[in-house]
C-alpha cells in the first residue's frame, strides 16, 4: 500500500525555496489506479518529482511510505529498486547512450539492488524483444540513442517499455498524455492497462480527462494550490471536464 501523509514540499529556485505542496494525503491500495487532476501550477509535477526524489525539491513535512518502507529516506535509485517508477512528462534525451545499453544497465542495476542475479546478454535480449513487440517498438529504435530524435509518441512508448521491463510496484505517470495524438495515446494506454495487476498501484497525473477514458481510474483527486481539494470516483473526472476546474475549486473553497 502507498501512503502519502500531509506531504509538504518546496522547490528550490535561485530566489530561494517556494512552497508548492501544502499537505497532500492519500492512500492507494494494491491494484488500485488513482488519478490526480488539476490546473497548471497546482503542484502535479512537483508531486511526481518529490516521490521520485529529485534533488531540487525539498520535503518540509509529512511522509510517504510504500508497503511500510519510508520512501523519502531513500536515494532515487533505491526508490526504483524498492519498486517506484516515474514515467516522465518530458522524457530526457541522452545522446551517446543507446537504448539497449540503457535498458540492460537499468534492469541489471535494479536486479542487483534487489539481491537478484544479473541477467546475461542473451536473456536480456530475449526479454527486451518480447516487451518491444508487445508495445510495437521496432528493433531499430533499440540501436538509437535514448530519446534522441524520437517522436512524442515514441518517447512516451519508451517510458511504458521501461515500466514493463522494470516491473515496479508503484507507477507514477506524469502527464503521460501530453503531446500525444489520439493513436499514440491509445497505444500508451493499452501498454499501461496491460500492466495493471492486483499487486501494482498507479498514480496517474493529468490535466485532461481524455487519458482517463482509456485508463479507468478507481479514485480521482482534484489538486489545487498544493492541496487535494476534492476526491471522488471516475465520475469526478467527467464533472471536471464539463464544468472546468474553476467551478469545482470555487465550490470547495
Amino acid at each position, binding site marked *: 500500500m502507498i501512503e502519502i501523509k500531509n506531504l509538504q514540499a518546496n522547490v528550490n529556485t535561485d530566489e530561494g525555496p517556494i512552497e508548492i505542496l501544502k499537505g497532500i494525503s492519500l492512500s492507494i491500495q494494491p491494484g488500485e489506479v488513482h488519478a490526480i487532476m488539476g490546473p497548471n501550477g497546482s503542484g502535479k509535477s512537483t508531486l511526481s518529482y518529490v516521490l521520485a*526524489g529529485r534533488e531540487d525539491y525539498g520535503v518540509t513535512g509529512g511522509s510517504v511510505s510504500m508497503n511500510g518502507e519510508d520512501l523519502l529516506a531513500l536515494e532515487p535509485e533505491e526508490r526504483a529498486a524498492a519498486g517506484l517508477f*516515474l514515467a516522465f512528462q518530458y522524457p530526457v534525451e541522452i545522446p551517446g547512450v543507446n537504448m539497449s545499453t540503457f535498458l540492460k544497465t537499468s534492469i541489471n*542495476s535494479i536486479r542487483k539492488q534487489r539481491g537478484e542475479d544479473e541477467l546475461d546478454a542473451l536473456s536480456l535480449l530475449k526479454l527486451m524483444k518480447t516487451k518491444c513487440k508487445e508495445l510495437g517498438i521496432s528493433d531499430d529504435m533499440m540501436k538509437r540513442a535514448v530519446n534522441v530524435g524520437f517522436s512524442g509518441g515514441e518517447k512516451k512508448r519508451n517510458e511504458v517499455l521501461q515500466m514493463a521491463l522494470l516491473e515496479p510496484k508503484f507507477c507514477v505517470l506524469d502527464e503521460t498524455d501530453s503531446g500525444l495524438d489520439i493513436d499514440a495515446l491509445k497505444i500508451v494506454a493499452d501498454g499501461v492497462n496491460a500492466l495493471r495487476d492486483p499487486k501494482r498501484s498507479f498514480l496517474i497525473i493529468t490535466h485532461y480527462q481524455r487519458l482517463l477514458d482509456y485508463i479507468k481510474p478507481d479514485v480521482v483527486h482534484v489538486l489545487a494550490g498544493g492541496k487535494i481539494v476534492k476526491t471522488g470516483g471516475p465520475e469526478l473526472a467527467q464533472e471536471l471536464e464539463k464544468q472546468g476546474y474553476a467551478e469545482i475549486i470555487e465550490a470547495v473553497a
Partner: protein
Amino acid sequence: MSAFPVPLDGQDLPTSKQEEWKYTNLARALSPELSNKRPMVSEEVFIHRSCGGNGGQVEDILWEGFEGQHQQPRLAIILEEGAELTVIERHRGAGAYWKNMVTDVTVGPNAKLHHIRIVEDSAEAVQTNMARVTIARDGVYDCFSMNAGGAMTRHQIHAVLRGPNITCSLNGVNLLKGSQHADTTILMEHQAPHCVSNQFYRSLLDDQSRGVFQGKVHVHREAQKTDGYQLSNALLLSPSAEMDTKPELEIYADDVKCSHGATTGPLDEEPLFCLRSRGLSADAARLLLIQAFVNEVLEKIPNKDAREEVRGKAEEWLTTRLK
C-alpha cells in the same frame, strides 16, 4: 632549411600579448633550463607514397622524450596523387622535456591521409606541435588527436584547402587532470570552392586542468559553396577546471554554409536524475554519461583498431578518475 639548432635564450618564446597565444603561457610552462637549452639533433621521419595502394596501409610511429631533452623532431608526410595511408603517431616519455615539433603534411590530388595522434607524454613534459597541412583537389585529410599527456601541450594546425572538392576533418578528445594544460589552435583556410571542413573536439577536464580551443575557419572570396563546421564541447568534472574557447569564422565568399558552436559546463542534472530513477547509482550514472560524451567523438576515428585502442585508453582514464 635553418642553420644548426641554436638556443632560444628564452627570448623568442611567444607571450600572451600575441593573440593566438593569449590563453597559453609557454614561457611559464618551460623551465629556464629547457628553454635555454641548445636543441638536440632530433629525429626526422619522412613518409612518401607515390601510388594508390588499398588504403589499409598503416605507418606506426613512436616519439619518445627523456628527462632534460629539448627536441625538435619533424614529421613529413607526402602523399602523391591517389595515394592512401593511415599514420598513427604515438607520444610517450619520461621526466621533464620539451618536444617542439613540426609536422608537414602534403596531400596530393585525390589522395587520402588518415592521421591519428595518441599523445601520452610524461606528466612533466611540454609538447608544442605546429602542423602545416596542404591539401590538393579531391583530397581527404582527417586527423584525430587523443590528448591525455604532458604538463602542457599545444597542437596547432594550419590547414590549407587548395583545390576544389576537398574534405578536411580535424577531431579530437582531451582527457585532462591535475594541472594539465592542453591547447588546440586551428586555422582552416578554404582557398577553393566546394570543400568541406569539420572540427569536432570534446574535452574532459578534471581537477585544476585547463583546456583551450581556438578554431578559425577562413573562407577566401573564391571559396564558394564551402561547408564549414566547428564544435567544441567541454565537460568540467571539477569546479576548478577551466576551458577557454574561441571559435571564429572569417568569410569573404557570399555563398557558403558555416557554423560553429561551443559548450562548457558540468554534467546536466536531468539525464543524471533520469538514470538514477531507473536504478543506476549516482556514480554509475555519471560514468555512463561521461563515457557517452567521449564515445561520440571517438566515432570519428576512421581506423577500427585505433578507435578501439583509444576507446580502451579513455575507458581506463575514466574508471581511474571516477573511482
